[in-house]
């Protein structure tokens, strides 16, 4: 278990992979549609268009801080309707980024959402890519 909060961990991941970042950006790394097999295996920055959609980015960011989260918590936190969240979760589930577990029955039925390992890797890589874009933009600013 690391004592570093997630944002720090992401930051250090990004710093550690500086060289990889530069290589990826220099070689015009292709933007990914992020099917499951395209999830990065390392922490190198990788822009992921599937995650980058605003609602999905919020969902993934929320789930990245959690081991798992209840469907209702994600829905309430993002002010989404059940159907809107279900739709986005289905897309993320199809990409292999999120796993869905249903427990109980009737009124006690609950749905747990969890970021899969490949989803976590993709999010880390995407966040690193965003940081790199911001850093590059800052460097170019007069």
């Amino acid at each position, binding site marked *: 278990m690391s*004592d570093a909060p997630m944002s720090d*961990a992401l930051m250090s991941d990004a710093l550690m992979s500086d060289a990889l970042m530069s290589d990826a950006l220099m070689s015009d790394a292709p933007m990914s549609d992020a099917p499951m097999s395209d999830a990065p295996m390392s922490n190198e920055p990788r822009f992921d268009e599937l995650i980058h959609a605003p609602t999905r980015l919020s969902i993934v960011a*929320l789930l*990245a*801080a*959690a*081991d798992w*989260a209840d469907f209702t918590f994600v829905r309430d936190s993002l002010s989404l309707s059940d159907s809107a969240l279900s739709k986005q979760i289905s897309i993320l589930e199809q990409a292999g980024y999120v796993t869905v577990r249903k427990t109980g029955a009737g009124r*006690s039925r609950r749905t747990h959402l969890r970021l899969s390992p490949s989803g976590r890797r993709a999010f880390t890589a995407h966040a690193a890519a965003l940081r790199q874009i911001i850093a590059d933009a800052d460097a170019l600013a007069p």
Partner: protein
Amino acid sequence: MADIEARQAQAVREAASWRWPRWYVAATAALMVAISVAMDFDQNPAMFIVVYCCGASLLQIPLAARIRVRLHRSRNTFRVNWPLGALLLTVAAVYVLARMALGAAGAPLPSTLAGLLMAGAYAAGLPLAQQMTARRLLAAR
């Protein structure tokens, strides 16, 4: 990036706002007292340990249904959660020390009295431990 950080902070705030339900605290304290009372009348600690562990595990089932978010292990660290661990060790120490002292003093029903002290320490210490854990969780964000 600000949105990512804001969403992650939401998850942390939700976890930090979690409070053990009163029924759970009451049931755990009752279980502690019941086992302590039983130990005054039957010298079979192994069986009571099993009964206590089963009871505590059963209480976890309805408790788990109330949790809306469990933080990732990178945030659920010992540095954050140590107050709850310290509370459980303190509660155990209260029972052991109180029972030894009461037994040595020749008090009637030493285990029952020690159990009452233990349950009281647990019920009184839990809010404090929760508060400390929540503060550490939010500070580590």
